[in-house]
């Protein structure tokens, strides 16, 4: 069996990687350029600081990709990041301490994610509407928990997650390993199957609704934890800090080749997409681009990264 399955595995992985060649190349070029412009990135502290700034975006891009893979989407990513951040910043300084804060943020993310999933999967409402409405509700809750920036994260915890040590990078590796393991479970496989071909998946015994619910819950968990990390990184909570993450998570996922219609895309692509967005900010600074040019360059790189592989594929076929 092993020969057959391993061949199939390689074939599937190969097909998944094919569309990503352009993205990999772009990541490589940006990293090389960054190292050339600012060699300090290669020091432990430099590497740690860069990966810390990238980490929350990487997490929410994964959270978004997780939903897009089975045909969903979330417009509530940003407010959920804010909520995770304010929960962490209001609980960690109190009686519950750091463990209590982590548990509270995780539960809030899981529960709210599951709730959205419940409405989408079982009431059959479109994810885009449900999550848009939820974004207002969750954003409101964040403002109730902490009406203006404040709260506190114990400094030792901030330094542990976002000091001069590459904790963020290790956590990211851990999350990716967990994702690989999750993909080996029936539910994990079901996420792709339910997005690619829901009817077929249902007939093969995948509980499509349950898979959807699960995807939303996990996505909520990842997002709230990204918020917790932001709180640790900044040492405090801010009820609106997450807002830009909604669009950026979609941009990162799409840039990484995750399709809107489900079943198409990979987590490694999504990770690369978020890495490009993050790298661009630093590279453009060191290149000395004025802000207006930064807007234009950013748009061109994103369009280029998505369009060129498509054009190449079409040209090959022709």
């Amino acid at each position, binding site marked *: 069996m092993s020969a057959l399955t391993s061949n199939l595995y390689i074939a599937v992985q190969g097909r998944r990687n094919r569309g990503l060649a352009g993205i990999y190349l772009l990541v490589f070029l940006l990293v090389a350029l960054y190292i050339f412009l*600012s060699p*300090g*990135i290669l020091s432990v502290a*430099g590497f740690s*600081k*860069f990966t810390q*700034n990238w980490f*929350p*975006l990487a997490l929410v891009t994964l959270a978004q990709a997780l939903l897009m893979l089975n045909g969903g989407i979330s417009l509530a990513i940003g407010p959920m990041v804010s909520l995770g951040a304010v929960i962490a910043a209001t609980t960690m300084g109190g009686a519950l301490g750091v463990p209590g804060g982590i548990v509270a943020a995780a539960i809030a993310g899981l529960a709210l994610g599951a709730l959205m999933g419940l409405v989408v999967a079982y009431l059959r409402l479109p994810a885009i509407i449900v999550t848009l409405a939820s974004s207002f509700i969750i954003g409101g809750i964040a*403002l109730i928990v902490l*009406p*203006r*920036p*404040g*709260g506190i994260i114990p*400094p*030792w915890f*901030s*330094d*542990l997650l*976002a*000091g*001069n*040590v590459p904790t963020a990078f290790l956590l990211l590796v851990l999350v990716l390993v967990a994702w690989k393991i999750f993909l080996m479970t029936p539910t994990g496989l079901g996420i792709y199957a339910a997005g690619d071909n829901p009817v077929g998946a249902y007939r093969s015994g995948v509980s499509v609704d349950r898979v959807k619910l699960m995807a939303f819950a996990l996505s909520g968990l990842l997002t709230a934890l990204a918020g917790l990390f*932001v709180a640790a*990184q*900044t*040492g*405090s*909570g*801010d*009820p*609106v*800090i997450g*807002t*830009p*993450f909604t669009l*950026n998570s979609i941009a990162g996922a799409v840039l990484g080749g995750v399709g809107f219609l489900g079943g198409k895309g990979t987590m490694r692509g999504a990770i690369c997409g978020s890495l490009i967005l*993050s790298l661009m*900010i*630093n590279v453009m*600074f*060191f290149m*000395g681009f*004025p*802000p*207006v040019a*930064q*807007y234009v360059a950013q748009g061109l790189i994103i369009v280029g990264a998505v369009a060129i592989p498509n054009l190449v594929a079409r040209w090959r076929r022709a």
Partner: protein
Amino acid sequence: MKLEIGSFLSSRRTLMAGVGMLALAITGFADQAAAAAKCIKGDRKAPYTVGWANIYSVPTWMKQTEGTITAEVEELKKAGLVKDLKITDAQGNAQTQIQQIQSMIDANLDAIIIEAGSSTALNRVIADACAKGIAVVNFDSLVDTDELTAKINTDSNEWGKAAAEWMVKQLNGKGKIIIMNGPAGISVSDDRRKGAQPVLDANKGLQIITETNTEYNVAPAQEAMTNLLFANPEIDGVLSLGGALSAGSIMAFDRQGREQVPITGENARQFLELWKEKKIKGWATMQPNWLGALSVYTAVQALEGKNVPAFVKVPLPVIDDSNIDTFLARADKFPADGYIYSEYDKALFDKLLAQ
């Protein structure tokens, strides 16, 4: 006190170095050491490279502010004090701003000027910059850490208080008002509103119909006010806590054919022109764009070894019928949707820094 696991050893080394420095200071550099501003170590020499980490460059107020910064840098270049200015725009994302300030630290700039996207999010990266001996000056939208060279601003609480007091006087302490605020969860808008509260508490005759929260832009403010006009036939005053908001409100009243009511605001050109044109009972103050220029000036002064105050409080002027013409006389020098700021020069800056 911060407990840094990673750099525990190195911080002990800094402590030893600190002891050495102390010995030096006692033996003769005491005066100079005491006079230096926060974050400044004295190891950076002119001409300096200055970074401006802006949260969002698109609003007109920001563009005008950037204008005063680049003008100031040109002046300082002529004096041989500055060699380069690097500008970043975080596009409204505080997380991006952290990353950009980190890049400025990595590039070893001498001074960083910050318009903050969050009053708390930048605290740690700012402390990092300060620890590297970089002059960090924060203006307009402030952070709540003190680990920086100087903060420069007007007093937002006082802004709200003065506006509310004027409104009470206009309405003789009685009437129905609408309060217009900037975005929720933003310190500036929150502080202005907080400043108004004690005055409102003391004058129960003023009844607050409702409040709005919008971006500091004309269009959303006009839309919000239009909706409120339908629902409220009787409005005696508009306590607007931002310049563009006031212009939006006046335009909403105008479109509906409603009689204009007393209104507060800022030095937005549009507001001042509408006020004059429609003979409105108005009051305004100013968040000067040249806070940006002053910040660059302050950072360079600090790098040059001068002591600067940790908080530079810039007084809020009052614009009313007695002096509105002096502002409008210079209107054509400013963009149509911009702010007519008062004139400034080095003498004014030196006076503000001598507080």
